């Protein structure tokens, strides 16, 4: 736990300093998006890396958060601050339903079913052509259809903050979601629930004989992680002032999946590392954008085949070797002191 704080705190300070040090629109905008995706990936990592459920419904949960927030704002006139939490709760309910339907199945079946759920949501939204209300002479659909859902406003930072700092509002809101999401993730991984999952992975028979039921814990993590995923969706909707079916594109799901895989599945700091790496790579590939998919695909294949522990696993291995080397160097001088230092 102390180690987690030692890593997390400097990162947080850095994130707070960045917009004041580089207050350009570009930096603030990219970082906000980074916080949103990183928050989603930390929760996905809990579901896949810790609970061992290979779900591909993460973006569907995200979209539920965003769409419910937008719809409450648009149709019921709720403030987005209130709607945001309703969106998070809706995501939890949705996720629990998906969990009940899927979690009793084996690995690959879960992946396929959740992928199908995401795809169904996408299809239902883009084929939505019925008029729900009229805006002047234009017909608007309930879900916003292919144009996306708009007209529900934003979090109102432009009224609250001086013009120069208006963009900081969304920045810090997204950062707050990421921080709580990360704290939740650390908490789960270090808690008895996280240990129960580790026990299940290491020795299923023993864990079951100790009365550790996988389904109950999986459902718990699946539902709880949806809260932050939904909140991230809500922040996304409020930030861009439009919620569209593009969040449900397969390529978007795969982009976030790559963040998780390349960062390191099941590791606390993997998602952050992966999200940062992927956004940087994406930025670097802007020049050759027509080969973006190829680059993404190659990275996925190479990491899974060659380096399945991801960047976080790599960092840890280097750190361990460094520690061992320093112990060894020390031991070469005075072995007995190392022995006593260990105690």
């Amino acid at each position: 736990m102390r180690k987690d704080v030692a890593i997390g705190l400097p990162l947080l300070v850095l994130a707070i300093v960045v917009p004041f040090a580089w207050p350009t629109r570009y930096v603030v905008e990219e970082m906000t998006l980074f916080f949103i995706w990183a928050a989603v990936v930390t929760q996905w990592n809990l579901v896949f890396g810790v609970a061992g459920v290979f779900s591909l419904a993460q973006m569907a949960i995200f979209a539920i958060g965003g769409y419910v927030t937008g719809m409450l704002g648009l149709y019921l006139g709720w403030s987005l601050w209130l709607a945001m939490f309703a969106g998070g709760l809706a995501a939890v309910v949705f996720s629990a339903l998906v969990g009940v339907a899927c979690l009793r199945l084996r690995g690959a079946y879960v992946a396929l079913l959740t992928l199908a759920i995401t795809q169904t949501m996408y299809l239902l939204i883009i084929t939505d052509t019925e008029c729900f209300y009229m805006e002047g002479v234009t017909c608007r659909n309930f879900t916003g259809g292919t144009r996306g859902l708009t007209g529900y406003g934003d979090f109102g930072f432009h009224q609250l903050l001086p013009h120069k700092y208006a963009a900081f509002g969304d920045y810090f809101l997204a950062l707050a979601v990421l921080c709580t999401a990360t704290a939740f993730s650390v908490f789960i991984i270090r808690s008895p629930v996280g240990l129960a999952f580790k026990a299940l992975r290491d020795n299923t028979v023993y864990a079951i004989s100790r009365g550790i039921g996988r389904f109950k814990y999986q459902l718990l993590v699946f539902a709880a992680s949806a809260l932050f995923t939904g909140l991230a969706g809500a922040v996304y909707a409020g930030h861009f002032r439009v919620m569209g079916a593009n969040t449900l594109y397969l390529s978007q799901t795969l982009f976030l999946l790559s963040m998780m895989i390349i960062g390191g599945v099941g590791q606390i700091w993997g998602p952050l590392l992966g999200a940062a790496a992927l956004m940087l790579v994406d930025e670097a590939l802007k020049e050759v954008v027509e080969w973006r998919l190829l680059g993404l695909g190659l990275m996925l294949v190479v990491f899974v085949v060659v380096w399945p522990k991801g960047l976080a696993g790599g960092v840890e291995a280097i750190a361990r070797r460094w520690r061992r080397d320093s112990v060894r160097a020390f031991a070469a001088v005075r072995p007995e002191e190392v022995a006593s230092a260990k105690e």
Partner: protein
Amino acid sequence: MNTAVQILVSGLTLGAMYAISTIGLSLAWGAVGVLNMAQGGFLVIGGYAAYAGATYLGLSAPLALALSALAGAAVGAATYFFVIRFMLDCDNFETNVIIATVGLALIFENVILQAFGAYPLRQPVRIEGGVNIAATYVPYESIAILAASVTAMMAVAWVLARTRMGRAIRAVSQNRAAALLMGVPVNTVYLQVLTISGVLAALSGVMLSTITTLAPTMGYDPMLKAFIVCVVAGLGNMYGALYAAFALGILEASVQFFLGVRFGFPAMLLLIILTLVWRPYGVFGRGVTQRF
């Protein structure tokens, strides 16, 4: 009466499309546990290979089909050599294969997109014409797909059940260590299965593209439907997959007719979830229910 025939005809057409997309996938997943997410890419590559053969090389239809089969075999074998081979001994084989083949799918899509462009093309390797059945126009292609899917499914089922190679494939899927002890070259079996699955997928891709169009992303939808067919039928059951494909096709056609086209897929999904809650290993599946 006319309505019923109409639904039946379009249901069978859809079902045949599902069945033909399912064969290669079902073989690789059911027999050796490789859930190949690049299967859609295999379909696309097969379709474009036939297109390129006919358009650029001026090949006749049978030769273009042969070229497509060759391309399918090549990508299938490449998938084994560059990806599957390295994962055979790892713990999370199932999920890692899914992730790695998703990566392959992206690579295939990107390469096809750059080589042929995003604009949908018309597949030149086709049978022209059609007939009217109960006021529904049925292209000869649909009938060909129906015949091909039934034949191919039965052929694959026969190979698995009756031949020495089929027995070896089943042995590897049931107990890899024991298969090794019997002298089965396990790695070669994986290569064989992926190559055959590539050929079947490529030929399916040519046939599918005759009734839709050729596009770099045309593989995803049939692949998703094929997954659903496999899940409903239960893994590794070829005849079950055939029944499931046609049943789902007829179901989708009815829902489209009575509720509207956009509810076809969601209705299928709902049915699948209910099916799996009732039978977690599929309607025709025979798996042992795990305790956890």
